[in-house]
């Protein structure tokens, strides 16, 4: 029983991961198709990528999307990290269960409800809709993801280091920046990246909260997809998938390296102490 993974386990892993990756792989392959027909292979070509570079509307949408994602992810990371600290460190206070409810609910709340409700709020506030309302909306739902990611990092954290710093007279804000933040940084970075990609990806909430002049890339892709599958969309999607994959792999290598470094430091410290 202990002689490596059984054939059943290997089969289910192979089937499961093929199911997850085959569709994306096919999408990428057919973005290099010479033929306009997406599903018939007509030879290798990069012409659809060249075509993309000429599509000014699409490039504008991509720029708006990146700006929205960058700003909303940054605000969400600050608020989400604060929320995680509150969840793990602040103990009991009035409204705590309301607070944690508001953190967990958006994770499962259907997007149509979030989008519609925020739109009605912006209308009631007489707020002109566009770039900034998308940022507010995205910040709100992505900060909850950041909070959950950072929280899991905070839970496995040795509190005595912080207490030592405070006993030595280090003010709380400084303790946070000198001790807490460096330790939870991988979680904070992962949270920022998750917020960034969620914002990059969002169609429904952005469609509700946008106004004239602020069309994001998913909205653009969606309106074209409704007209049919084209190699250009495959090319846009391939670029997005490639960017995100590279980002995630780079981040995970960086985190791993940091972890190895920290383990080495700890071992050295214990070695010196012993």
């Amino acid at each position, binding site marked *: 029983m202990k002689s490596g*993974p059984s054939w059943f386990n290997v089969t289910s892993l192979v089937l499961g991961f093929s199911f997850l990756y085959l569709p994306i792989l096919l999408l990428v392959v057919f973005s290099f198709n010479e033929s306009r027909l997406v599903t018939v292979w007509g030879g290798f070509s990069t012409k659809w990528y060249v075509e993309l570079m000429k599509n000014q509307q699409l490039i504008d949408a991509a720029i708006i999307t990146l700006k929205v994602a960058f700003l909303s992810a940054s605000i969400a990371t600050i608020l989400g990290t604060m*929320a995680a600290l*509150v969840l793990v460190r602040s103990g009991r206070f009035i409204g705590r269960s309301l607070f944690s409810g508001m953190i967990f609910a958006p994770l499962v709340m259907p997007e149509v409800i979030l989008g519609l409700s925020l739109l009605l709020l912006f209308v009631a506030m007489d707020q002109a809709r566009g770039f900034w309302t998308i940022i507010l*909306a995205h*910040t709100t739902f992505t900060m909850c993801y950041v909070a959950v990611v950072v929280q899991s990092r905070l839970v496995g954290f040795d509190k005595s280091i912080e207490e030592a710093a405070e006993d030595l007279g280090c003010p*709380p804000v400084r303790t946070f920046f000198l001790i807490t933040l460096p330790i939870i940084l991988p979680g904070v970075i992962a949270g920022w990246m998750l917020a960034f990609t969620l914002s990059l990806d969002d169609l429904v909430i952005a469609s509700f909260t946008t106004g004239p002049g602020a069309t994001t890339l998913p909205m653009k892709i969606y309106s074209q997809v409704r007209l049919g*599958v084209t190699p250009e969309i495959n090319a846009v999607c391939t670029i997005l998938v490639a960017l995100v994959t590279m980002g995630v792999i780079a981040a995970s290598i960086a985190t791993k390296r940091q972890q190895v470094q920290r383990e080495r430091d700890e071992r050295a410290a214990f070695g010196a102490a012993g």
Partner: protein
Amino acid sequence: MSTGTQDKPRRSAGGWLLIAMPFLWLMVFFLAPFFMVFKISFSEVAVAIPPYLPTFDLSDGLAGIKDAFSTFSFDNYIWLTEDDLYWKSYLSSVKIAAVSTLITLLVGYPVAYGMARSPKAWRPTLLMLIILPFWTSFLIRVYAWIGILKNEGLLNQFLLWTGLIDQPLIILNTNLAVYIGIVYSYLPFLVLPLYASLEKLDISLLEAASDLGCPPWKAFWKITLPLSIPGVIAGSFLVFIPAVGEFVIPDLLGGSNTLMIGKTLWVEFFSNRDWPVSSAVAVILLMILVIPIVLFQNQQQKAAEKQA
């Protein structure tokens, strides 16, 4: 040492500020909007900007609210019960979400199990491979299936080539395509919590069972499955709740007879521009989901407290 005395009151001003900022943000941008939806759902559609009649204004004080209550219109809700489109949408959303959750569970359990039983050295890579689709666009992943499921798509081409079928299967724009889309999109959400609970499982329990002559399938049924129930529940909620209100999948993969409430709400809002009715649809959807959402939250909170 002055900070020591300042810390005496249990929470400093900074501590309160830490709580207040995210709290207020969520109150304004998450909780308050629900009251707006609730309010507009009692309004009437109008040819105006914004396209609904005003209901009540808090600036009128209590009298104003009382006044408004007498003119409150339940028309939208009555409308929802009279037109069977909405009933059917709700029922069919819940059904599609429940069936897809079950299929996702059947597909995801062996994957999570295989991951948890794989050699330790493989696990970080496998985990990474499960997480990676989270980061790739939802829209793109749904879009990828259109090219596969179309009548002249890759799946039909493949099946025709193998000779298994001689007529292309019609899958795109049917409920079957919606099931495939939901299972595919939400699989990682189910595998992750399930893997977490399966990985924690003490393998010596299974060894003890097998030493005592328990066949593997029985050990699975008696030990592994019951111990993985928290993961099963967390994962199922993460699939079921968002799937009920799903819009993109039924819109792109489903057909004209695929009824899902997220799509109905979208059409009501963007095509018919009937904000009050779409608000009423949202209120009822929220009422349907409130029980699973509260259960999910409690479970998350309990898990978080256990960790701490």
